[in-house]
C-alpha cells in the first residue's frame, strides 16, 4: 500500500480533522451523561490547545448531523483569533437548524443514527486537497467524537472510507461518548493505526483528549497509547445490514449476503 508520494514535515506539525456528532437524538437521550454544552466547552479548550502547540497546526471541524454534514470551522481561513470560539459556535448553531429542517424521509438509517460516512468522506477529501496544495504540508489525522450507535446502512460506505484512509496513511482516532462500543469505529482505528477510546468519566473529557488525542503522529511512536482490546470484526450483510457471522459471498466482488442470491446486487 504505497501512499501518495508527498513531502511532509518531519516534526510535529499536524492537521487535525475533528468530526463532532451533533445528533440531538443522542445528546438528549439517557445514553449520554454529558450535556452538549459541557461537551462543547471541553472540545473548544482542546482545539485551542492544539492550535497553541505549534504555529503551523491546522484544525478543521466537521459536524455530523443525522441528515447532512458540513464544515464548521477551519483554522487556516484567515479570521480573527479572538473570535474563533464565537465563529465556531455560530456556525454550529446554523448547521443544527439547517440539519433539522432538512428532515428527509429517505435517509439511510433513520434519525437515531448520525451520518458518519458522510463526514469521513468530507474529511478525506479535504486531506487530499491539502496533499495536492504545495510542497510541504502537515501530517493529517482524523478524530471522531461520536456518540450515536452505528447505522448499519452505512457499513459499506464507512468501510470504503476506512480503506482509503489506510491507503493515504491517515490514522482515524475515535472517542466514544455513548454507552455502547461502536464496532465501525473500532475497526476504523484498528485498520488505520489510530487510537480507540471509550472514556469512563466523561466529566474529565478534556483531560482524556489532551492526554491521548493531542499527541501528534511523530510522538506516537514513543508513547504508550490505549491498545485495541478485542476488535469486533464481524461484517454485516449487504441486503439487510445485519451483522452476521456466516454468510454467502459473491465470487466476483466479494460482497456479503446472509441468504443465497442468484444474482449479486453489487456486480450482477
Amino acid at each position, binding site marked *: 500500500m504505497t501512499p501518495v508520494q508527498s513531502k511532509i514535515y518531519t516534526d510535529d506539525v499536524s492537521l487535525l480533522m475533528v468530526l463532532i456528532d451533533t445528533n440531538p437524538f443522542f445528546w438528549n437521550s439517557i445514553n449520554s451523561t454529558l450535556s452538549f454544552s459541557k461537551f462543547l466547552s471541553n472540545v473548544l479548550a482542546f482545539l485551542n490547545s492544539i492550535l497553541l*502547540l*505549534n504555529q503551523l497546526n491546522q484544525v478543521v471541524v466537521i459536524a455530523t448531523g443525522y441528515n447532512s454534514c458540513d464544515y464548521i470551522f477551519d483554522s487556516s481561513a484567515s479570521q480573527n483569533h*479572538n473570535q474563533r470560539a464565537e465563529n465556531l459556535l455560530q456556525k454550529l448553531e446554523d448547521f443544527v437548524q439547517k440539519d433539522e429542517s432538512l428532515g428527509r424521509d429517505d435517509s439511510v438509517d433513520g434519525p437515531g443514527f448520525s451520518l458518519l460516512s458522510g463526514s469521513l468522506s468530507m474529511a478525506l477529501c479535504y486531506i487530499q486537497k491539502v496533499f495536492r496544495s504545495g*510542497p510541504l504540508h502537515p501530517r493529517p489525522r482524523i478524530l471522531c467524537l461520536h456518540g450515536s450507535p452505528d447505522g448499519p446502512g452505512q457499513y459499506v460506505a464507512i468501510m470504503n472510507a476506512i480503506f482509503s484512509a489506510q491507503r493515504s496513511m491517515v490514522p482515524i482516532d475515535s472517542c466514544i461518548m455513548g454507552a455502547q462500543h461502536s464496532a465501525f469505529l473500532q475497526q476504523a482505528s484498528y485498520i488505520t493505526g489510530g487510537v480507540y477510546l471509550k472514556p469512563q468519566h466523561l466529566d474529565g473529557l478534556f*483531560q482524556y483528549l489532551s492526554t491521548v488525542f493531542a499527541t501528534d503522529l511523530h*510522538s506516537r*511512536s514513543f508513547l504508550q497509547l490505549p491498545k485495541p482490546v478485542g476488535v469486533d470484526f464481524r461484517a454485516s450483510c449487504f441486503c439487510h445490514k445485519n451483522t452476521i457471522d456466516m454468510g454467502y459471498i459473491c465470487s466476483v466482488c466479494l460482497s456479503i449476503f446472509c441468504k443465497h442470491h442468484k444474482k449479486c446486487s453489487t456486480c450482477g
Partner: protein
Amino acid sequence: MPQVRIVARNFMDMVASLPASKLDKLYDNSFICEAILRSLPPLAKKYVLQLLYIDGPVTAKLLEEWVIPDGVSKHKVAIDRLIQLRVLSETLDRKKEATYRLNPTFQINLQKHILHGGILPREPMPSNVTVRLPSLEDLDAYAVQQWECFLLHLINSAEAEKSTNISSSMMKVFQRCLLSQKDDREPPKLTESGFQFLLMETSAQLWYIIREYISNSEEHGVDTADLIAFLLELSFHVTGEAYNVNTLTDVQRRIIKDLADLGLVKLQQGRKESWFIPTKLATNLSISLADSSSRKQGFVVVETNFRMYAYSTSKLHCEILRLFSRIEYQLPNLIVGSITKESLNKAFESGITSEQIISFLQQNAHPRVAEKIPSVPENVTDQIRLWESDLNRVEMDPAHLYDEFPSRDVFEAACDFAREYGGLLWENSKKMRLVVKPLPPSRNSHHHCAIATTIAQQLQPTWANLAHHKEFPSRSVISLVQLEEYLQVLEFLGHNTAKSVRVDVENSQIWTPAASEQRLRTRTLQRSKIIFRFFTLRSFKMYTALQKIHKDRDAEPTEFEETVAQALFDLENTNQEIKSDLRDLYINSAMQIDVSGSKKAVAIHVPYRLRKSFRKIHPRLVRELEKKFSGKEVVFIATRRILRPPKKGSAIKRPRTRTLTAVHEAMLEDIVYPAEISGKRIRYRLDGSKIMKVFLDPKAKNDTENKLETFAGVYRKLSGKDVVFEFPITEA
C-alpha cells in the same frame, strides 16, 4: 540535575541560560509562555499539556510509564529541557522520589490561553487611518530586499548597491565573528564561521544576528528580558497589519528602528501617526525557534553532469554560489555554473565542509527537483564528499624519531612510557626505532619528564636522527624511517639514477640527478605528496629485487641468488627496451656450476609457466646477464617436477611428463636453446658404458659454438649423465 549540556546554539538556549529570577519574571508575559511552549520538543509539549490542569505534584515514575522503552532517551531530553527552562520544577518528596510540578505562573497563563483563545498584544489600526498599506507580496519583497542588502553589507561593503542605515558600530558588532581583518589596508576577509554563516538558512542567520544584537544591547544597558519579551511579542503580530507606534515604549521604538533596517518591520508615516508593519521575517521568528524546516522556495537545480542552474536575480545568491562553484555566465534571471574540483578545493580551504555545501544545495533545491528523491543527484553529493576526503588522505602528526638505543631495556622502557601517555606512533623492535608524539605540555609529572630526557640524552644522533630531533613545524613529514627503502621508492617512481640521489637533511631537500642538472625538481620533504602517499600505504609491498625471485616453500634466497635477482631487477629498471617484458618475470633459483676447471656457468631455474616468455627475450637477456656476470655463461632451465615410480599400494597414475627420462630430455632442450636438437645417438661401449651424442642444428652454430662445453657441464651437473654436443657435418 539536567543531564544535557547547555550549548548556546540558538535563542532558546539563551533564554534558558538567563538567571532564575529573570526567567520567572518572563513567564508573567503570556506570549513568552506561548513561545516557549512552541519551542519545546514534541514530547515535552505533550507533558506540559497533560500536566496543565493537575495541581499537585506528579511522580517521575508516572511520567516514565507513559513512554515505551524505545523512547526513553527522548523522554530524558524532554524532561531536561523542561527543567532547564524552569517550566517544571523538580522536588524530592519524603520517600526520596522525584516529583514534578508545573511552574504556577506558566500554568495559569496557559490555562487562560486555552480557555479564552489567543489574545493579540495590540490591536491593529483601523484601515481608514492607514493608507497606502503595502500588499503582502510587496511586503515580502521589501523584507527580502532589506535582508539581502544587510547581508551584502555585512560581507563586503563595497558590493552592496544601496546603503543601509545601520550604524557602522552596529555593523562591526555583527561582523565580529564573521570577518577578520589582517591588515587595515586590506579589505576584511570572511572567516570560516563567516562562510558557514552564509550557507545557513535565513532563519538560522536571523537568529544569529538577533543574538548578537541582544548581547550587544546588554552591554548598552537595555534589559535582556525586556528585549526578548518584545521580540517574542512581535512574532505574534499578524503580517501585513499596521500597528501604531505610539503603543510602544521609547526603548521599543529604538529597537523597531533597528529592526526596520534588518527587514523585520516596515515603518510608514501617516498624516498624524506613524505605524509599523511586521513582515514575514518577524512573524516567522517563533517558528524558527523550534529548529524546524522552513518553507522557503528553492532556486538551485543541480544536474548529474555537475552543472548548476540557479534561477535567481539576487546578488547575494551569486556571491554564495561563487564560494564553492565556478560561475560560468549570468543571464537576467539565471546563474549558470558548474561544480569543479578546483572550486570545491577553494571552498574547503576557506573552511567550508562538504556537508554544509550539500545541505545548502538540498535546502535550496528548486521546486521542480525538490520533489525528486534525492533532490541533489547522488553522484554529485558523493563526489563532493570524496573530494573533501581527498584532502584528508594523509594525516600528519608532529613526531620525534628515536634511534640507536643503547640497550633493549631502554628501548622497552621508552616504548612503555610512550604507550602510557598515548603517544606511541610506530615502533620497530627489530631495529629498535621509535616514533612518538611530542609530550603534551600539560603533563606536570616530573618523574615522567625525567625519564624522557634521560632516554633522549643516551641516544647518539645518527644522520637520520639529526633530521628529526629538530621539531619540524606541524605540517612537515613524519617517520621517514628506512631511507634505503625511500631511495628504492624514488627508483620505482622512475628517477633513473637513484643511487646518486642526494639527501640534504639539514635543509630538508632531496636532489635527484635530473634536478641537479636543471634544478627542476627540488622537492622539499614537506611538500612531496607522492612520498607521503607511499608511506601511508604501508601495507603495499615494497617493490625490490626480492620480487624477482620466488623460491619454493619459502626458503631464503642464497647470496648468489640474490645477486642474480638484483641483476634482473637492475636490468629491468635501467634497460627501457626489455623493461616491459621483464616486468612480470621472476626466477625460481640460480646456481653456479663449474665447467671444465676455470670457467663457471650460471644455471637459472625459471618457473615452468614463464619459460615461453623467457624464451622470447632469451638472446638479449643472456647477453645482458653475461655482461653483468662477466665471463660466466648463462643458461635458463625450466623447473620441472620429477616423481618417483609409484609404489605397489598407491593408486595415482604418474604422468609421463613427470618421469625422469622425460624431464631430462626436456632439460636438454632448454639448455641448448636457441639451438635445436636435430638428433641423438647413444653409443654403447663394449664395457657397458654409454656415450650420448646430441646433434644440434647448424643454423645456430655461430652463437653456440663456444658454449658446447658449458652445456655439457651444466647437463652433467643437473642430471649426472655425460653428453657430447656436435654439429653434424653433412646436411641430412
